[in-house]
């Protein structure tokens, strides 16, 4: 056996970077965690299979454009059509971002370093947002690249594509703020998964119930507001207002006014972030 020389303790006199760098490092670490990178093979299965499912419609779309010379899924409707997969991804992966640090009480190791609670939460939200954005924007971009290559008749729908990518970012912020807030209230991962999926199902299921009730009582304009209970349709209604895309609600039912939708969207994001901040202020003081 070769001998190991003990060269003694060496001091570190290299650079010490600021809090911005630390926040970025935490965001990257958490983002890797969302996709199970640097973890066991088992923790990669769910995120990568869901990402693969998201790519399937894009591939079918490209094939349709190439062979049948007609468009498949519209860019603006992609997120709404794929909402069940996106919601499953959020429910399964949001708890992995926040729960372990709470459950295993890792938080003090972070807070005894220069980063504060605000930066910790920011990094976690950023990581989840980027993950969700990639989940939606990568297939969109693939479809757009396909459209450019196939060279369909007429100009490419660049504006609709860019609008959809922007709305994917907005959707990602909304979903991660809420998903993380909900899953941070329990240190148990399984419970977090169940809570997030339950909230999504509740918001989804309430749409037809509320819509149907109001519609049958002849209150059509009020019924339109029911769409906004679901985060995907809420973001779609804002997109429809900002970019003039057709509503992707069921049977293309009209949404209520755009500015109100945007206000609700901003309000919901704020509520999610505040809930998260309050949760962590409490956790930090333990």
């Amino acid at each position, binding site marked *: 056996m070769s001998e190991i020389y003990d060269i003694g303790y060496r001091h570190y006199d290299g650079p*010490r970077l600021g*809090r911005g760098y630390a926040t970025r490092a935490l965001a990257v*670490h958490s983002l890797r965690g969302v996709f199970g990178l640097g973890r*066991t093979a088992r923790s990669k299965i769910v995120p990568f299979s869901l990402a693969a499912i998201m790519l399937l419609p894009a591939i079918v779309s490209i094939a349709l454009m190439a062979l049948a010379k007609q468009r498949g899924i519209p860019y603006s409707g992609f997120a709404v059509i794929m909402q069940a997969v996106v919601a499953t991804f959020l429910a399964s992966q949001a708890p992995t971002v926040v729960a372990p*640090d709470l459950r*295993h009480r*890792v938080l003090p190791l972070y807070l005894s370093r*220069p980063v504060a609670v605000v930066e910790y939460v920011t990094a976690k939200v950023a990581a989840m947002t980027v993950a969700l954005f990639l989940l939606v924007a990568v297939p969109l971009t693939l479809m757009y690249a396909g459209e450019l290559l196939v060279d369909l008749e007429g100009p490419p729908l660049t504006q609709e594509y860019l609008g959809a990518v922007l709305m994917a970012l907005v959707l990602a912020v909304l979903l991660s703020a809420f998903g993380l807030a909900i899953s941070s209230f329990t240190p148990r991962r399984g419970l977090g998964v169940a809570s997030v999926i339950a909230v999504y199902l509740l918001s989804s299921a309430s749409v037809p119930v509320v819509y149907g009730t109001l519609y049958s009582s002849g209150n059509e304009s009020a019924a339109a507001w029911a769409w906004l209970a679901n985060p995907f349709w809420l973001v779609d209604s804002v997109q429809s207002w900002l970019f003039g895309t057709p509503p992707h609600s069921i049977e293309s039912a009209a949404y209520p006014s755009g500015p109100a939708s945007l206000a609700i969207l901003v309000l919901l994001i704020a509520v999610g972030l505040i809930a998260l901040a309050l949760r962590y202020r409490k956790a930090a003081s333990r």
Partner: protein
Amino acid sequence: MHILATEGLTKRFPTVTAVDQLTVTVGSGVTGLVGANGAGKSTLIKILLGLLPPTGGTAKVLDLDVTAQGAEIRRLVGYMPEHECLPPDVSATELVVHLAQMSGLPRTAARERAADVLRHVGLAEERYRAVGGYSTGMKQRVKLAQALVHDPKLIFLDEPTNGLDPRGRDEMLTLIRRIGTEFGISVLVTSHLLGELERICDHVIVIDAGRLLRSSAIGEFTQATQTVTVEVDEGLEPLAARLTADGQTVSRQGRMLVVKVAGAETYDVIRDAAVDLDLCLIRLEQGRHRIEDVFREEVASV
């Protein structure tokens, strides 16, 4: 130079006063912070890290104010919490590299430092395995490694020997002593066991119910109670009487006499008394005085 200094430091919670008018200074080297469970040790450390605002008084760590310059303090100190704090699904290397980055070290430097400190705390090949499968001793080493990885000027170790077996305890204490001497990093280590701190500390601070009982160099603790234990075969009574008559302070402990050492002449007096009374002297032993005894006396007198 003072590593840390507090002035009338007070922390009140709604139902309890955790730190009460604490004024204390700590120099470089290894300092023990001793107190029973709930004496306010952990609260004091949180205040010193700038994580908990004090209700009153001031505290400075490395000449930085805890309320105004908390982030700056946390850049220069390391902290090993008392409780379990390691995520089970990552390897020790990955965790320590990540936490080094959180302290501001660039990625390559973080990797080098993590490898270095993990070697220093005695983790070899197992550092690539997930922490979940580690023994308590190994987990404690990882916790210590993450506190050292950014080469702090000062580290706070909260009950580092908690849950360790006697051998693990010894190894941990030796390591802490090395950190204070070879590594040149000042250490504030808490414990509720005085005996173990006695071996590694230069200075000991004793607190109880958030108040300072005593703060002094380790030498002063032991010097205060120099005694010699005398054991004879028979005739304990006459010996005790004779020594008392010669002006020594004698107390009886079972089959032995404990004589307070007034000076070098005490030994002569004991020897002469034994010879004169024709006693069979079995043992004459320097009293093994533990700071525990001092602690007991001081707690009793409060």
